[in-house]
């Protein structure tokens, strides 16, 4: 049985968390995550979940407490945004290094300064090297679905890694849209019981967490971490298959839209993909062979699969909602890396859009498609990296 509701992205995720009913959650409020955890705290206060909810004094503490609870053998959830994720940064590496399958919605927000609370991917991109799995979501439905699948992926016995579920602050977190919820039983059956490994509370098998590992073994632990996160593709697809059976919704490593016969393409993450798909439909009506690829995972990055999907294109624009100042945007560099080994490389350009929640409008996507068409025709590139939607 499923329920169809009109909810905000945060309400959808709070509902997922109620259905999942984790053992432990340590949280610190930060816009635009606040009303997600407020909603979940209400579920807790009203007795709908048996989760132990702890309000801590900072995000660094929130992640630290979650690490402790995960070491103790609990199913653990927290959530954050922007500067909150930045404050967690040190502990993110501890969670992944200790292979603790903590699941964390990241409601994407800009980093200061100037102070800004709106949708921007700088927060998650800043944490891209922390060893966490990153799942990105276009809308509230995808965020809800990814949240549920994240537990199966993170907690898989061959993976045991923490996972972030990213969705755009305000644009998704605070906008109301149609979401299909699964029943509580379906969700609980799908995620199953949590199996702790190396629980600190198991006095029959005493373990120590957090030992010093110096020059003689640290390098080896990092190699294992790299191999584990790189190998999750098969499990992701298996979980997606099972999820399709209970939900009817299909997921993969990435989303491709009208790519098969496309000549020009846009690669873009999260909510802006929806706007772009609409504009692509319009362009197709005019006979422009445009398509879109939206990575679902930024970590691990599925280089080979994505390169193959983009291999037929002549010109690609990779669009970043965050910047690496003095360099190309983070998504662009991954796409460029994935194409480098190909014989016939497409022309690749980078646009920085929508920082600090600046609207990404259909007209912006139209301008990009027009520019790509022109490059396809003339072969002339004026800017490899450019900010769009700027006030002049």
């Amino acid at each position, binding site marked *: 049985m499923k329920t169809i509701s009109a909810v905000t992205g945060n309400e959808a995720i709070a509902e997922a968390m109620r259905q999942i009913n984790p053992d432990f959650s340590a949280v610190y409020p930060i816009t635009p995550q606040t009303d997600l955890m407020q909603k979940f705290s209400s579920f807790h206060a009203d007795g709908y979940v048996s989760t132990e909810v702890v309000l801590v004094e900072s995000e660094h503490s929130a992640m630290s407490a979650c690490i402790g609870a995960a070491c103790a053998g609990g199913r653990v959830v927290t959530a954050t945004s922007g500067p909150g994720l930045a404050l967690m940064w040190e502990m993110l590496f501890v969670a992944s290094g200790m292979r603790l399958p903590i699941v964390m919605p990241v409601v994407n927000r800009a980093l200061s300064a100037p102070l800004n609370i709106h949708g921007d991917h700088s927060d998650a991109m800043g944490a891209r090297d922390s060893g966490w799995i990153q799942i990105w979501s276009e809308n509230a439905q995808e965020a809800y679905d990814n949240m549920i699948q994240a537990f199966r992926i993170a907690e898989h016995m061959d993976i045991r890694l923490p996972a972030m579920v990213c969705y755009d602050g305000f644009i998704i977190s605070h906008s109301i849209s149609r979401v299909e919820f699964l029943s509580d039983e379906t969700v609980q059956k799908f995620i199953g019981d949590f199996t702790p490994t190396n629980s600190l509370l198991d006095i029959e098998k005493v373990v120590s967490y957090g030992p010093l590992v110096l020059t003689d073994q640290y390098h080896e632990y990092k*190699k294992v971490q790299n191999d584990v996160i790189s190998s999750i593709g098969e499990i992701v697809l298996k979980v997606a298959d099972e999820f399709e059976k209970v939900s009817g919704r299909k997921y993969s490593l990435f989303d491709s839209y009208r790519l098969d016969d496309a000549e020009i393409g846009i690669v873009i993450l999260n909510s802006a993909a929806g706007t772009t798909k609409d504009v692509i439909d319009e362009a197709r009506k005019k006979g422009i062979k445009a398509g879109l690829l939206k990575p679902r995972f930024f970590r691990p990055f599925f280089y080979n699969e994505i390169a193959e999907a983009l291999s037929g294109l002549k010109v690609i624009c990779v669009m970043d909602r965050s910047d690496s100042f003095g360099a190309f945007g983070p998504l662009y560099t991954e796409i460029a890396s994935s194409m480098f080994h190909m014989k016939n490389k497409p022309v690749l350009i980078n646009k920085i859009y929508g920082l600090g929640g600046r609207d990404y409008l259909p007209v912006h996507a139209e301008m990009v498609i027009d520019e790509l068409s022109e490059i396809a025709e003339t072969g002339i590139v004026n800017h490899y990296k450019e900010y769009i939607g700027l006030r002049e």
Partner: protein
Amino acid sequence: MKIRGWKDLNEGPVIKNPGNSILYKTGSWRSFKPVFLKENCTDCLLCWLYCPDMSVVVENGQMRGFNYDYCKGCGICANECPGKKRQKAIVMEQEGK
């Protein structure tokens, strides 16, 4: 202790056999070595009290010498040793001399 290759590591840096620090011999870090001069010792055991590891060997309340498998040669024992008649019972010597 056997240093493991990457294929043999636990899923995280978790110690599953408690008390295994005894297998990790740290004496090779030492560049100076404490030498015990029994004739100057009053068995006050300040060396045992101050040793940051457990490298001072005591039997029946008497100082017997050092466990060099774990002594890192910090020299605190020699510094603290009151000795007998201003003659230290512990002196530091450079390793490899």
